[in-house]
């Protein structure tokens, strides 16, 4: 778990920063980015195992970011965060190659479990 590298992308800073701290307390290394463009830039210098990506963001939307990430960095597994009632967007994301989707507000244990599954999938395919 200590080797896990996670990139958190969400425009809601308070949320993403707090989440990063909590994951950090659990020994997961995280980086945070607050917009889609920033996420793509970050990937140029930082290669995470998993990317946790919010779908509802101003500017470049989560789905666009997802498409580009899957194209440029197919190894990175993406877990999507959706608002309640946006199940269909989550499903669309999964068709575009996302590993899974979670609804906000999150249960931290559930997120960690999904991250773990995504990493084990990534390593098994590698």
């Amino acid at each position: 778990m200590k080797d896990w590298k996670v990139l958190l992308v969400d425009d809601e800073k308070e949320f993403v920063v707090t989440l990063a701290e909590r994951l950090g307390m659990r020994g997961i290394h995280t980086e945070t980015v607050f917009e889609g463009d920033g996420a793509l830039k970050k990937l140029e210098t930082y290669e995470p195992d998993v990317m946790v990506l919010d779908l509802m963001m101003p500017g470049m939307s989560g789905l666009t970011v997802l498409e580009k990430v899957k194209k440029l960095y197919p190894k990175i597994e993406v877990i999507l965060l959706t608002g309640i009632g946006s199940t269909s967007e989550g499903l669309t994301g999964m068709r575009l190659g996302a590993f899974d989707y979670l609804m906000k507000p999150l249960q931290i244990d559930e997120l960690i479990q999904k991250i773990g599954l995504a990493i084990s999938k990534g390593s098994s395919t590698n």
Partner: protein
Amino acid sequence: MRSLKGLIEDLLSIPEERSTPERYRIVGRNIAILMLITTLVPLALMTVINYFEYKAALRNEIQAPMKTLVNKAKHSFELFLAGRLSTVNFIASAYKFEELADEKNLNRIFRVLKKEFEGFVDLGLIDSNGMQVSYAGPYGLQGKDYAGQAWFEHVRVNGVYISDVFKGYRKFPHIAIAVQHISDDGREWIVRATINTGKLDDLIASMGLDAESDAFLINRQGVFQTKSRFYGDVLDKCPEIPPISFEPAVIERIDPLGRDVFLGYVYFNQNDFVFVLVKPKSDVLKVWYTLRADLLIVFVIGLAVIILAVLKLTNIMMKRMKESDDKRTLALREVEHSHKLSSIGRLAAGVAHEVNNPLAVINEKAGLMQDLIQYNPDFPDKDRFVNLVKAIIQSVERCRTITHRLLGFARRMDVEVQILDVNEVLQETLGFLEKEALYKNVKLDLDLSKNLSKIESDRGQLQQVFLNILNNAMAAIGDGGTIAISSFERDSQMIGVTIKDTGHGMSDETLKHVFEPFFTTKKSGEGTGLGLSITYGIVKRLGGDIEVQSKTGTGTRFTVYLPKKTPAQSGV
């Protein structure tokens, strides 16, 4: 005319205010009046026209035979008189003066005359001085001097004379016929015969009149020449002298007995006589009176039938009109209601999305606090803080449930139709509740129709419908009670499911708002007030209907009707 036009406009105008009883009353009344006018006016006109037309035709029909009869009688009388006159004329010219002056001869002639011609009473020969030379008959008038009498002068001038009826020396009514003869040698004599008017009576009797009718001769001065059945004896004065007409005529009079009568008459051309025939109207118009009564009965029955039909029709029309107005109002209300629901739905969706992010933040912050407390073994008041944070996280969880429901309510869910057994869906749904029922000591009473048709519907949504209603029932019951669930075939189109509880029931006021979103009677925090409005929305979307009956203290009964075939999706 103006006022009539105004009246018609008033009748045709329909008050605009909808659905008030007054409006239906006015419209109904106006329609009834218009229908009555349009049907009764022609009927009344027809009746009146028939009445007068038929009366005129009948009068004509009655008068024509009367005229014929009068004319015939006149001819009979004239023929009779002419016959007698020519007989006397023949006697005057066939015999010489001496032959007639011989009483034996005259008596013989008179006997033959009486034998051959009825009515002759006597026969006399009068010389140019007015002296009765010879006489044959019962009264012994030989030697009577007629010189100076009007008739004698008349016959001397005109050669012929037929008298009015008179009594004269003979003391009974008779007519005198006198004929002057001037022989070739210039000798002048007059033969005079009298005729019993009984013969005239016989002629009248032979007309065969009914008991109520009368016929008689009068002269132009209105003196009876024959006796009348009702109006006087011979030589009495007749109460009425009809206007002169030598053609048969009929006039209408009221006779001295007070009867309405037709009076047919004709003036004689050669004599002073007028023949009069009297027939009471009541007799001849009997047919007319019957017909008039028939007409009246037909009119009254027609009137009654029309009024009844009009009232009945108007009633039915008004009922239909009210029903269709009610339906329209109901449809409008339903549209309003669904608009209300959909706008509230949009609002709810917005609220849910907006609230969701801060909620996620609160969740994470609280989570972090929890982490910090738990990872620090020396945290002061650790247990208290752990509980406080737990409470925050639980509240966030509750908010999450609410926003989830709000979105569920707002979402335009596509109906996923499959053929399913509603009994099965009910049993599945009850599966969720069995434990709670056991725990609350609630009896679940199932009465599912074995022959229930399978229907086309959405399993998940049906489950939500039943679950919502069952949850409400469970909440209403509290501890101990019964929930009775039954399914049944309503008709060829629909099936029904009834869920009845023995809970605390609802007041009428609550019942009115029961399907409105955010309406709840549960304590704050216990319910969102969305359950039943979601249920309502789903049932409507599935093409069904939902009814609720409730009584405070007795319980509530929900009935859900579902179509066997799903209607075309409306997207509501």
